């Protein structure tokens, strides 16, 4: 079975994000980078499929030089090889350019099933998986919490409000992983030591025949407004205080 897992390197969930003074992005010097947690579910599911049905797992990532660490993490978990799409021209890639780059790299590889996280926790756009499926012309199964493989097709579960959908499709297909799909394993020390020796192909935009044809541009990054100080309603008369509270909730907070 030829399994592909796409991963993105994102700031650690606990990283303190600071917006650059010119609003062009975030300060990325001191940040600790990790694998997007939703992509981790995808990698884990890929490894489980491989363990059960044989085959190999290829990790594909678009990102700057440091993204190699995230590819190595996936290799340390047990994936077999990697493709690192790295090009300064892709630094400002939007979802479409990222999906195009992934599609160009994956087209040349045998692929039965492709895993992506349902979204990345940094930009939360959630488009890459869907675009990738479209560019490859194959079905997509999104927000998957359970996956069963049956020879030439897969059956998945996707929860919806008050119910769950059971969906089936033929292979190849793109699956986007949602929390609950599995419990990602920790890389073992032997896995970490072996990861260094596993092959990772580094490709640039020219080698893949893609251009940075950005469809959507981040115009500006602004930090959320600082929280205003709370208000304490003083006074001796409870009824008066309650009236003032109601007025504040209605007129200032517009909550009632």
């Amino acid at each position, binding site marked *: 079975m030829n399994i592909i897992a796409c991963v993105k390197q994102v700031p650690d969930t606990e990283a303190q994000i600071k917006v650059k003074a010119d609003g062009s992005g975030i300060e990325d010097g001191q940040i600790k980078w990790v694998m997007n947690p939703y992509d981790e579910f995808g990698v884990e599911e890929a490894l489980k499929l491989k363990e059960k049905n044989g085959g190999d797992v290829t990790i594909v990532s678009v990102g700057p030089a440091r993204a190699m*660490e995230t590819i*190595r*993490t996936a290799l*340390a978990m047990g994936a077999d090889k990697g493709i690192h799409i790295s090009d300064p021209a892709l630094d400002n890639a939007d979802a479409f350019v990222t999906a195009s780059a992934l599609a160009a790299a994956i087209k040349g590889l045998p692929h039965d099933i492709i895993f992506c996280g349902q979204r990345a926790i940094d930009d939360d756009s959630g488009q890459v998986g869907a675009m990738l499926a479209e560019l490859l012309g194959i079905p997509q199964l999104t927000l998957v919490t359970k996956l069963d493989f049956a020879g030439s097709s897969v059956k998945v579960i996707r929860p919806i409000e008050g119910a769950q959908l059971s969906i089936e499709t033929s292979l190849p297909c793109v699956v986007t992983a949602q929390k609950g799909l599995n419990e990602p394993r*920790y*890389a*073992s*020390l*032997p*896995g*970490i*030591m072996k*990861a*260094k020796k596993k092959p990772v192909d580094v490709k640039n935009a020219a080698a893949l025949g893609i251009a940075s044809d950005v469809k959507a541009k981040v115009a500006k990054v602004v930090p959320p407004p600082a929280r205003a100080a709370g208000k304490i309603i003083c006074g001796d008369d409870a009824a008066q205080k309650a009236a003032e509270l109601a007025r504040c909730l209605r007129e200032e907070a517009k909550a009632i």
Partner: protein
Amino acid sequence: MEDREFGFSMSEEQCSMKDTVAKLVKSMVSGNPSHDMDEARALPREIIDKVWELGATVSMVPEEYGGYGMEYSPIMNTIVLEELACGDMALAIAATLPSTFIYTILEMGTEEQKKKYLSLYCDPAYKACTVALNEPRFKFDAVSLETKAEKKDGKYILNGRKCFVPLAKDSGHLLVAAAADSKMELFIVEGNNPGLKIGEREKNLGLYALESYPVVLENCEVSVDDRVGGEKGCDYSRFLQKSRIAMSALGTGVSRASFEYARDYAKERVQFGEPIASRQAIAFMIAEMAYEVDAMRLMTWKAASALEAGRDAKKESYLAKLYAGEMTMKITDYGVQILGGHGFIRENPVERYYRNGRGIAILEGMAMV
């Protein structure tokens, strides 16, 4: 020539392992689980199994004996121990305890001993084995033991008393340190040897979650083949060095846990209109904790790197252990002090770090690099 090493940056693999252990510790150990283990005086098997699955202990055993054939690295082991102890020191000791047995046999055992014992413990499933080193007597000295091994009719007869033997009751084998003709040696003793009497679980100041036992050896017969290293015997000095570096790494971990908790607390706790961290009395303590943790770690790494380079680390490991023992007491004490009354109650972990960390200056042979 002894101060040759000069490189403080971690390799990609070391960083990766540190991050992996830290991630596991954060999701499964720190905070409530660690508190609950201490209260329950027991370590959940599933957490020990998870740590074991990281493969830190068995990775360095050659494949022919059931390991993964990675390079033996005391430095990597100190990194793992610090991260684990930063989460919970009792867990760090229990989950890596087989290292005390495995690394000793690996480095000092005869071919037969390696074949017989390594595969037994290099199993995907965690199996306890331990070291009986400490003795319950005033002026205990690890290099002059009162437990004696006498050769008689082609066997060794062991007699003596041991204490602080972690997980003795569940251990398949114990490495017993004893004096044979005034040279210190290690003997492999089966857990069910009739000459081995395991007493009641000890009630200790700290490490509540870690079971430890007194052990009495009464005419305990051991085959000559089970003297570590056979005829040649073991390198007891190196055995102690590996243990001392490991204890220093544990001290660094528990101290760092106390430092980080107290630092974050001091930045948030407001008294007299400002966070207490902005008061010099507190700020100085936090700074001291920060640099002592670094100092401890550097001494530990220095000693480990000497071992890794294949050199004797007697001096470095003694100094690291001595320093870690003293500083762990000081730092974990500061942790309690900075939290004040909150530090004295069990709901905050600094109380536990203080009790557990106290063991570094006293205990020996509970971990191995």
